[in-house]
């Protein structure tokens, strides 16, 4: 049996906290509001979609202290070991002087009812810390996870532009001035010892190493593995599911690596979308564009590609491009590791090929030959921070004679799992890559998919849009510009 050991230790604004009796499902938001009476952080939705609860969490990445915006409503307190949590109350100087980010929001009339405002301030603060000269696209991206119902956003964006333009050289900042000491302190709090705590009947476990994780899962094969909690968080806040015991893997450095070789990218299961973005976008710009449309910034800072793959959702956004790219997934347990093609991992709706005691260790994305073309298209009711109605990835190789030599097409939102369009692929391979072939292949979608009607789209729309996306792909390979772009170079 895993014995109780240690405590969850983190820094809250300027106070160090050690918690040894916390439920595995206790959220940071409740901790802030109920236990600490830090009520500046608001609850708007309790599902990571509105951003009213945005706080910054600082953590060490390769020894460097970085701060990321997160949704406190679905961030479990048990996942905070060796972090620095920064709330809106920490921004202003002791004499009440507002931080420049806050002052810009005041000067530009960026608040009306004010309830979303602390969350916006924290998102803007996260941007301010990480980007000296944000473009309009950068600002909108930083705000994708924050809803405002009053202002129409214009004054908030103006505030963001203004504070970026006029960065005072000497400014009071609660993070920058203590960077070195926080870094040192977090280094001390980081541990390779396993933390294990019980609270009533519930248990949370924070393994210190990968091998400890394998041992823990061998002992608790039904444990819930939590990386970013952007999905599991809702099991708790919305469904009251019992997920005992909970194993938090977000602090495991061994799962935080992203390795680039001549063969491709190996992405550790704990790597967040934000951390993976640069390397994926460099290798596959269209995949990078897709990542920019997954959740909001807070969700991308928390959510992992490993988790997106492992939870098996039919509407997860990373599986279609990963399947098109022939990605493999490596699962590890105490007994060793095995690797299988990602598409084989998905058995049916709600069922994946993950055996008791196994965890997803990494996803390998092989390098695609430069002669091939890849496109990824996400269709949703709202462009950003929405779940796909459908998401399609198209990959094709066309020989010198104009014939299609290979095709891999995969969709989310069209079946019970992320699924390849085998009939469409067959209808393309060996044919001339031209409009007639595409029109004829469009019919094959009916054999591949029988999508559902739900609140995101009707079956008819899903099928029609999927067919039309093949045409879009064809037109784009011919150099035609057929996608709407809000900003040049950004899909």
């Amino acid at each position, binding site marked *: 049996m895993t014995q109780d050991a240690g405590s969850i230790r983190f820094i809250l604004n300027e106070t160090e906290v050690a918690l040894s009796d916390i439920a595995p499902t206790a959220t940071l938001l409740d901790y802030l509001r109920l236990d600490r009476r830090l*009520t500046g952080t*608001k609850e708007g*939705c309790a599902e990571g*979609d*509105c951003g009213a609860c945005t706080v910054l969490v600082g953590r060490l990445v390769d020894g460097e202290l970085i701060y990321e915006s997160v949704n406190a409503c679905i961030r479990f307190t048990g996942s905070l070991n060796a972090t620095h949590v920064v*709330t*809106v109350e920490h921004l202003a100087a002791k004499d009440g002087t*507002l931080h420049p980010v806050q*002052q810009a*929001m*005041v000067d530009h*009339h960026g*608040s*009306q*009812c*004010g*309830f*979303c*405002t*602390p969350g916006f301030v924290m998102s803007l603060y996260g941007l301010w810390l990480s980007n000296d000269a944000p473009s309009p696209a950068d600002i*909108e*991206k930083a*705000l*994708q996870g*924050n*809803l*405002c*119902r*009053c*202002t*129409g*956003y*214009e*004054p908030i*964006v103006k505030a963001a532009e203004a504070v970026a333009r006029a960065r005072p050289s000497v400014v009071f900042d609660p993070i920058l001035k203590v960077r070195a000491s926080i870094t040192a302190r977090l280094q001390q709090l980081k541990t390779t010892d396993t933390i294990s705590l019980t609270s009533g009947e519930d248990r949370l476990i924070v393994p210190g190493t990968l091998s400890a994780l394998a041992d823990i899962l061998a002992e608790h094969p039904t444990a819930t593995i939590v990386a970013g909690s952007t999905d599991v968080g809702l099991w708790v*806040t919305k469904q*009251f599911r019992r997920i005992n015991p909970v194993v938090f893997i977000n602090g495991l450095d061994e799962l935080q690596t992203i390795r680039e070789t001549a063969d491709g990218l190996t992405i550790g299961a704990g790597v967040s979308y934000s951390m993976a973005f640069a390397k994926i976008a460099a290798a596959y710009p269209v995949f990078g564009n897709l990542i920019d449309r997954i959740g909001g910034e807070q969700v991308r800072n928390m959510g992992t590609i490993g988790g997106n793959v492992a939870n098996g959702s039919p509407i997860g956004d990373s599986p279609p491009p990963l399947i098109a790219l022939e990605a493999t997934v490596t699962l590890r347990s105490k007994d060793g590791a095995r690797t299988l093609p990602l598409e084989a991992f998905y058995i049916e709706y709600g069922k994946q090929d993950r055996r008791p005691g196994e965890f997803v260790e990494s996803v390998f994305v092989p390098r695609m030959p430069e002669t091939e073309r890849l496109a990824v*298209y996400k*269709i949703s*009711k*709202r*462009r*950003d921070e929405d779940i796909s109605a459908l998401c399609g990835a198209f990959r094709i190789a066309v020989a010198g004679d104009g014939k299609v030599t290979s095709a891999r097409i995969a969709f989310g939102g069209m079946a019970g799992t992320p699924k390849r369009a085998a009939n469409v692929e067959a209808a393309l391979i060996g044919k001339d890559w031209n409009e007639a072939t595409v029109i004829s292949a469009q019919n094959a979608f009916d054999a591949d998919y029988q999508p559902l009607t*739900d*609140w*995101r789209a009707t079956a*008819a*729309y899903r099928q029609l*849009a999927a067919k*039309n*996306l093949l*045409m*879009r792909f064809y*037109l784009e390979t011919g150099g*035609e*510009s*057929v*996608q*709407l772009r*809000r900003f040049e170079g950004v899909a």
Partner: protein
Amino acid sequence: MMDNTTFEERKTIAGPMHATLRHDSAHKHVAGSADYIDDLPEPAGTLHGALGMTDRAHAEIISMDFSAVEAAHGVVCVLTAKDMPHSNDISPSHLDDEPVLADGLVQFHGQPAFAVIAETRDIARRAARLAKITYRDLPHLTDITDALENGAALVTKPLTLQRGEPEAEIELAPRRLKGRMRIGGQEHFYLESHIAFAIPGEDDEVTVWSSTQHPSEIQHMVGHVLGVPSNAVTVNVRRMGGGFGGKETQGNQFAVLAAVAAKKLNRAVKFRPDRDEDMTATGKRHDFLVDYDVGFDKEGRIHAVKANYAARCGYSSDLSGPVTDRALFHADSSYFYPHVKLTSQPLKTHTVSNTAYRGFGGPQGMLGSERIIEEIAYSLGKDPLEIRKLNFYGETGSGRDVTPYHQMVEDNIIHGIVAELEASSEYQARRAAIIDFNKTSRVIRKGIALTPVKFGISFTMTAFNQAGALVHVYQDGSIHLNHGGTEMGQGLYIKVAQVLADSFQVDIDRVKITATTTGKVPNTSATAASSGTDLNGMATYDAARQIKERLIAFAAERWQTAPENVSFVANHVKIGDELVPFPDFVKQAYFARVQLSAAGFYKTPKIHWDRNTGRGMPFYYFAYGASVSEVSIDTLTGEYMVDRVDILHDVGKSLNPAIDIGQIEGGFVQGMGWLTTEELWWDAKGRLRTHAPSTYKIPLASDRPKIFNVKLAEWAENAEKSIGRSKAVGEPPFLLPVSVFEALSMAVASVADYRECPRLDAPATPERVLMAVERLRAAPAGTV
């Protein structure tokens, strides 16, 4: 700190009327120190409530078993309809059709049938899921078309507006078109969900903090359910985290339950529903089905209009009567209908009872009217703007200046607004360029539209057009301001404070804005119908006037001079040639036993309305505006972007341009969401499946118009004697984004060479846009 500069140093005050000022709470908002109800410290022993929700759209409740609920650790009690001490009804229309808790009959999926009170909110919410309810299912109607076609009952009496001979004239008109438009509802999505917090007092007293736009109604409902008089109930609200109409009546159930539990248990009780519970259990904007029939001539001039506006009202009347009335009041948009008959049909459905939402039916009324214009334009091959101009209300006395409700349009400035915007936005050149672009662009198509707004200001229930204010001037010259309006982000408090500062000619930081409470100003109307500043600003002005008159009389006597020699100048009172600092003057007045406190009052003049005859002057004045929107659509997927928006809007003489621009921009984006991505979706069981931001998509920063030019019509001034000659601004801008909808429509129409009206329904989701494209491509001309 108050500034003690001399008059010579500064001859103007900080924060007069018409000045750009920040929201009074802006600093607190950004610092996280503005307190909402859930942020207030809780007294020891505070309990928390959660709703027990049903999972049938229409059913009899056979039994409810709470044994598992009551056995849960930390549960204090379960409340059902039988625990309501005096009444289980909170119908704001007084039709006795809205139970606090379902009593034997479930009328919408999710309707609360019980409430759990527990030591923590988490315990209460978890325990609420442990009840075992058995039902006998009854047939349900949730969809508006089904309701219409199956002869659903009406929740309240319908309205007819008629003028002239519509039946005959529509037959005589050279051309005629009929059609149907489906208009979706809308979730308010205030960022702060509903909340109520009740603290029991002595005897029959209770104090409730409620996130409400209507404290007096909360007071009445709490009193009614508890069976205590209004004087036992005090309701407070400092600020809401958004309202938009969603907190006009919908806070009642939470406030009542908190108060009932607090009195029963003699402990403080808080009710804060989760977002999903809030979206499931509280009403929304009404969906409408508009059937129209229009007769017109070959130029596009309208001869006669007949239209029926059927609304999905939900299971009870709530505010559906006045909402559907207002839809008809705006079914003329800005156009003169020589002969007209408009009817409303407030349909009962087994869905949550729909309620007030910014515009209050007006946007739906107007959208139907603008569809008629589109139909005429596409059928004649003309620019809809040309048809609009042809049909605008004429100048006063033109004979084309009377509305379907027989009110004359006496302050018409729509021609000037539209002409100015058409020029400044370069509408004609851009439209020509777009038509050229569409000729050669295979996949991406563009559209542009200019649509007008004319919105009637006043509650159509004449009695609601009254307001009170309470002003105290203290001996140190500081001023306490209270009025019946509530602050939900719209900037009411700062605007009214400007009125008061301006009246006394003191810097605005001398004025303390205080929380709205039924204990200071009684018998208030909801802060709604865009009326907050008009009514409360005037009431406050009246309170200041009374105090100033006393002060002037005092000065005239003390200084032995004529009253006209006494004036209020920047932070001073000028008596003859003598300047006395305001605080010193006030102190002297106190010692002279002058009453330094006053209750102000205002009632809107001129208005009257007879619903039975459909005649009257329901509106004191109209607010105007117009917008031009340009969009691009992807004809392969239906996806779209809003490329540019230009707005010219009339707020009269603005009391605070920054606040007004904020209302216009925010109202526009909110209205754009209603018409584009915000879709409410019920499944076959009658369950709302879009009940959280993960499934219900309001606009993001990246959805706002990429170029967004917003201007006030600076030359405008209210023709009526409103406060500072300003105009109401809360609702009218919500109607501006109809131009986005019509620009999408034009882009779709391009695939059939603009020969067919695309008949887009709202919201124009990417799916609806794509399906409209497919429909137009598939159909030969004249058959769509």
